[in-house]
């Protein structure tokens, strides 16, 4: 069990993270991470997926996270130039405490308008696990795992921040 204050802090973090990703506020989004952050989007919905044995869509350590964001900020990441128009709903939030960190699980639905070419609306949905660590007086994410409902299906470009 977590306290009401911890639950509220976790939910506020999730909302803020979602908004910064939606609005392509890359530097602010990157600042939400701890220095040892791991950003993982498996290529399967199999709960036994192991990033050391199975290919993932994304398995970024902190250095690669920096590269991902630097690409987006370069002005030449054409698959996100201009940035997709996005809004996501975050819901069904459950928060637990584990090893001094908060573990928040949530569902999301994201509407993404791919304005770079076909102007198609892409709908993304999945289950997210955030590990949140208190650093000074703020929460930061040390891990974000996104299991897409259609992780194993052919996906369009996913170069925005999911």
């Amino acid at each position, binding site marked *: 069990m977590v306290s009401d204050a911890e639950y509220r802090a976790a939910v506020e973090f999730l909302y803020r993270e979602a908004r910064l990703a939606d609005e392509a506020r890359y530097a602010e989004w990157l600042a939400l991470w701890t220095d040892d952050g791991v950003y993982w989007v498996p*290529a399967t919905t199999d709960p036994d997926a192991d990033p050391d*044995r*199975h290919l993932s*869509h994304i398995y970024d350590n902190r250095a690669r996270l920096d590269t991902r964001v630097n690409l987006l900020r370069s002005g030449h990441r054409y698959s996100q130039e201009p940035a997709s128009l996005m809004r996501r709903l975050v819901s069904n939030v459950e928060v637990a405490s584990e090893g001094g960190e908060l573990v928040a699980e949530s569902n999301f639905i994201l509407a993404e308008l791919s304005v770079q070419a076909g102007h*198609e609306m892409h709908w993304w949905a999945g289950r997210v696990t955030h590990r949140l660590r208190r650093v000074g007086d703020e929460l930061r994410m040390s891990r974000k795992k996104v299991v897409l409902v259609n992780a194993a299906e*052919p996906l*369009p470009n996913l170069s925005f921040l999911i």
Partner: protein
Amino acid sequence: MRPSAPPAVDYKALVQDDRIHGSLYTDPRIFADEMERIFRRGWVFVGHDSEIPNPGDFVTRTLGGEPVIMVRDGSGAVLVLVNRCRHRGTLVCPAARGTTKAFACPYHGWTYDLTGALLGVPYPGGYEAFDKAAHGLVRPPRVASYRGFVFASFAAGGPSLAEHLGRATKLIDRSCDLSPVGRVELTAGWVKHRCAANWKMLPENDSDGYHLGFVHMALFRTVRTQYQRVVGEEKAIKAVIRDWGNGHIEIDWSPGYEGPFEWLGGASGPAVAGYVAAIERRDGPEAARQRFLEGPAHALIFPNLFLGETNIAIVEPVSVNECVHWHTPMLLAGVPEFSNRLLRMAEAGMGPASFLMPEDLLVAGRNQLGLQARSVEWLLLGRGLNREQVDAEGRAVSHVTDETTNRALWRHYRTVMTDA
């Protein structure tokens, strides 16, 4: 009144030596012809035998739009079966992969063994005499493999796989022989990337050395990669492209490499000591040194297998304006210590969230949109005609930014599409 037959497409007029017609990417009749002539009659890559190591293991794929199952039977043989119940047409195997003892149709319970033989038909009293032997799952008449890469053709006749691959087997060898036991393993799973463009954009782009500095400018400006020297001044570029015949085409970066393992993002010391020793024991020090410098092939095996250096990719046509690019890391049997790096390289290089392919597939999609402009008919294909050479082995070779590879692809295409 009888409807008149649609006029046959004149591929000789549409595919010329230095230009191709835009309708080749947009005409649904042409797509249908390609599925028949290239993806059914021709040899098409289905999968790799390492994906199904044990009896009963299977994966499902499409071949010319047809759903098929690649399965290892009880004797250990790799078979390709058409994924369609002989009774009412139901998919007998809906899963992408798995392990089974038999394929049971969910509709009326018809059951087939791993070789496709029909085992049972419930309520047999409904047939006077039923020939089970004549109602097994259909198999493409020809299935053959080279170094674990399994190909199939729905044509009973025609060139053998060995004839189709020709000397391009050397490209497959170049990749496989990086393993000390000579085997690659495609066991890490596939990522599938949807592309809103005609399928031919992908093999053309995979063998296009001209676009790197433009399409991938973000990457080159952000991090150091092994391709950095390819985006420099035109005369300083040493990488080349080659035509291996039969539509098999290559980019060879290695003339631009200055040291071993650049294709692996650099490696030295204890990280590769055991591996280096194993290859040196097998090949001798000089051949091993050359192998570490050259690295794996970057080549298209016509029409749908892409040896993408440390990745293996499949091009799957869906419709005239949609295809899927599959990829998996090319793991090297006997070198488990490389697997983690190869996984991370696969995620960086290919797939919808990678640092390279989203730009490639975006541009492919924009090509498809631009080609809707019918007031311009032709795409240019003449780059490098002024400087391509024929090497000692008879292969056309040219500057990496030239279109020798595109021309080779289209020349073979024209042959396949017009053969009697």
